[in-house]
């Protein structure tokens, strides 16, 4: 068992934990935290696969793509948080309603 494999499996675990939080939590900020855990898991999985090379060292191309991914995740998070703040400012809620609940309004 190599270190790269350990980190790869951890990445898979992080994706599952984040996904569960994303599915179960209703508060939008908590969903953002979960979303970021999923992306961390995907990056770690990808990076671990790039670190399996025989001669040691980590493949630089996945590293560059992961750095791009981290910046993209930050941009999405920033925009999503601005939308959530706006939603909260206008409705006082930080959750999305079910369609069923919306019919009751």
């Amino acid at each position: 068992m190599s270190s790269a494999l350990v980190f790869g499996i951890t990445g898979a675990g992080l994706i599952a934990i984040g996904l569960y939080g994303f599915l179960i939590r209703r508060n939008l900020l908590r969903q953002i935290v979960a979303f970021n855990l999923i992306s961390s898991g995907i990056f770690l999985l990808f990076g671990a696969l790039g670190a399996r090379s025989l001669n040691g060292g980590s493949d630089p191309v996945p590293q560059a793509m992961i750095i791009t991914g981290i910046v993209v995740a930050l941009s999405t998070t920033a925009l999503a948080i601005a939308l959530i703040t706006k939603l909260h400012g206008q409705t006082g809620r930080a959750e999305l309603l079910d369609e069923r609940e919306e019919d009751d309004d």
Partner: protein
Amino acid sequence: VNFGLLFDIGLCVLLLGVAFAAIAARELFASISLFIGFGLLVAIGWVRIDALNVALAEAAIGAGLTGMLLLNASARIEGAAQGRLPVRLLPILLCTMIAAALGWSIAELAAPAEGLVPLVERNLPAAGVDNAVTAALINFRGWDTLLETVLLVVALIGIWSLGEDAVWRGRPGLDQTVRPDGVLATFGRFLPPLGFLFGAYLVWVGSSAPGGAFQGATVLAVMWVLMMVAGLSEPPSVGSRGFRWALASGPLLFLAMGLLGIFHGGFLFFPPNFAQEMTLLIELGLAVSVALTLGLLLMGAPRRPA
């Protein structure tokens, strides 16, 4: 006994535990704090698999900036949801299956291949920089990075467009009044000179050692935000034309360099003779405009008149 492997297993158990705690924590503040801690632990993980450039990006952007954004939002959204994590059988089953399928497919992969390492090593001299990750970011996979920098600006435009009509083109953030001898005022004066120096160093060193435009820009951005929060620097008004050009300058410079490449073989092709100069120029241009963009992403939509 392989102590390195033992350390990695311990770190991974900790990572999974902290990630679960961030999801399960009853209070939002605890969840965000755990998430920031998680980001720093992942950065240690990146060091362990020899990805130092990613470790810097994860610590600065993944843990630092994302954590700041979340903390700021949680302070503005009062009475944020608290509560125990519900146990739902079907989602647990689904998530376990996904983790098992992913984990199994990694474990079953054929013997490690060399991947792109030899290809990168062969082409590194033509890229003009010694840091292979910087070469991959700016040169080999320039398209990704160009679009990423455009995306940053687009996200900022999206955030600005959420401002109220009354403060349209106004300034982001609150009018800061800081106690003159308080911690924030002292900290705001003491830290930025060191921080700016370190940020500039990270950008500069990125061509030959771990570091680079994005990691350095994050440090610069945070120092700028600290100065704005400490009331030492007024945030620019969103309508300022010169400032908008400064934000777009990095991607525009990158685009211009890419177009120059057309005369030498194709879009985003950097001729080996000039690759070093072009890469450095792009890195410097990106560092400035990305730092400004990140700083304003943290400040959010305009909230007061210009």
